[in-house]
C-alpha cells in the first residue's frame, strides 16, 4: 500500500537512482543506456538548441554535436545537479560556440531590423507557442540569443554577459529591444481585448 503512494521526495530519489544506473551503463558505452538518456532528454535539449539557433537545418547539425559532447563528457558528470540541468548547460554552451563559429554572434550589438510580420491570431495553445518561436526567429541573432537565454531559459544578465562576452548592461539593452519588437510582432496576441478598438489597442505613439 505504501509503495503505491510514494512521496514526491521518494519518487525523485528513485528517479535519480535510475538515472545514476543508466548513466553508469552509458559511461561504459552501453547503447541502450545512451539511447534511454537521449530519448528522455532530447525533447528539451533539442528545443534549447533549436531556439538558440533559430534555423532548423543549423539546429539539426548543432544538436547532433551537442549530444556527442554530452555523451563524451558523461564521465565528468558528478551528480551534483540533475542530469537534465547538467546537459542543458552543455547544450547552451555548445550551441553558443557553434553559433560563434558560424559567425552568427560576431556582432552582438546588431541593430534591430525594422521588418514587420503579421502574426495570425489563433486560440490554440500549441499554435500560440509556435508563434512566439516564429516571431523570435525574426529578431537579430544577438537579440534572439539574449531573449531566449533570459526570458525562455532563465539565465540572469550576469550569466548571459559572461557567456557572450558582453556587459550585463548590454544584455539588458538587447533584451528590452527584443521584447519591444516581439510586442509589435505579437500585437494581436498580447493586446488586451477589453481595451476596445484597434486604435485604442495600438502601442502609444511615443
Amino acid at each position: 500500500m505504501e509503495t503505491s503512494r510514494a512521496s514526491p521526495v521518494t519518487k525523485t530519489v528513485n528517479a535519480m537512482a535510475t538515472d545514476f544506473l543508466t548513466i553508469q551503463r552509458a559511461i561504459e558505452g552501453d547503447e541502450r543506456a545512451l539511447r534511454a538518456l537521449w530519448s528522455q532528454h532530447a525533447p528539451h535539449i533539442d528545443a534549447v538548441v533549436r531556439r538558440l539557433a533559430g534555423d532548423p537545418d543549423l539546429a539539426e547539425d548543432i544538436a547532433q554535436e551537442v549530444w556527442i559532447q554530452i555523451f563524451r563528457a558523461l564521465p565528468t558528470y558528478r551528480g551534483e545537479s540533475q542530469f537534465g540541468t547538467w546537459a542543458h548547460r552543455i547544450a547552451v554552451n555548445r550551441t553558443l560556440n557553434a553559433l560563434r563559429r558560424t559567425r552568427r554572434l560576431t556582432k552582438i550589438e546588431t541593430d534591430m531590423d525594422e521588418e514587420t510580420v503579421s502574426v495570425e491570431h489563433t486560440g490554440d495553445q500549441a499554435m500560440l507557442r509556435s508563434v512566439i518561436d516564429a516571431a523570435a526567429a525574426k529578431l537579430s541573432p544577438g537579440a534572439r540569443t539574449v531573449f531566449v537565454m533570459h526570458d525562455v531559459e532563465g539565465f540572469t544578465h550576469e550569466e548571459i554577459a559572461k557567456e557572450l562576452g558582453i556587459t550585463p548592461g548590454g544584455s539588458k539593452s538587447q533584451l528590452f529591444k527584443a521584447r519591444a519588437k516581439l510586442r509589435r510582432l505579437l500585437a494581436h496576441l498580447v493586446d488586451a481585448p477589453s481595451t476596445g478598438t484597434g486604435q485604442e489597442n495600438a502601442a502609444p505613439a511615443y
Partner: protein
Amino acid sequence: MQHLPIERLAELADGEPNATEQLHLAECAMCAAERVAYMRVVAMAADERRRIAPPVTNWGALSAELRNQGVITTKAETSARKVFIAKVTRMAWQVAAGFGILVTGLVTGRMSAGMPLRTALAMGVPDSTSGMQLAMNTDDFTSTASAMQVLQKAQQDYERAMMYLAKYDTSTSEGATQAYRTTLAALDEMAETSLKALSQSPADPIINQVYFTTLGARNMTLGKLAAALPVGARLSRF
C-alpha cells in the same frame, strides 16, 4: 502627458516601477495596457521553456557517429575493458606494495649501517609514492583528462625516483633486491595484460598509457635490480 519610454515598459514586464512610474501607470491607461502586453510576451516566453517538441536529432545518425567515435562500444569491448581495468588496478596495488617493501628495506638497510632514521627516511621516500597515493583515490579526479595528467606525472616521477636511486643508492641488501624482483614480476604481468588489451583496442588512450608507463617502470626497475646485485653477480632470473 509624458508616456513611459518603450524600453522602460519592456523592462517593467518583470520589473518593479519606481514611485513616479507607479503614479503614472495608475493614471495612464495606455501605458498600463502596454505594460500588461509586455507581461504577456514574457509569460509566453516562459511557457515556451516547458514546450515539448519532437527532437531534431535522430538516433540512427547519432548512434552511428557515437559508434564512430568509440562512445558506443560493443559488449565484448566493454567487458574486455572492465576486466582490463580490474586487472591493472590489482596489479598496480601489487607494484605499489612491492615499492613499499623496497622503501622499507632501503630505510632498514641504511639504519643498520648506522644512518640516522630521519636521513634514511628522507632518502628513501621518492616523489612517486605521493603520486601513487593520489592516483588510488578516484575522488580526486574531475575528468578523464585530469586522470591522464596524474598518470603521466606519476610515470615521470617514478622514472625520476628510480634514476635517482640507481645513481645514488648503494644499498645492496637482500631485502632490496627481493623487493625489486617482486616489483619486476608484477610489472611484467601488467605489461603482458596491457599488451593483450591493446591487441583488442589498439586506439584506447588509457590502455596505451598504462602499457608505456609499465614498460618505462619495468626498464627502470630492471636497471636498478642489476645495480643492486653484489659485485660479480649476474641477473639471470627474478
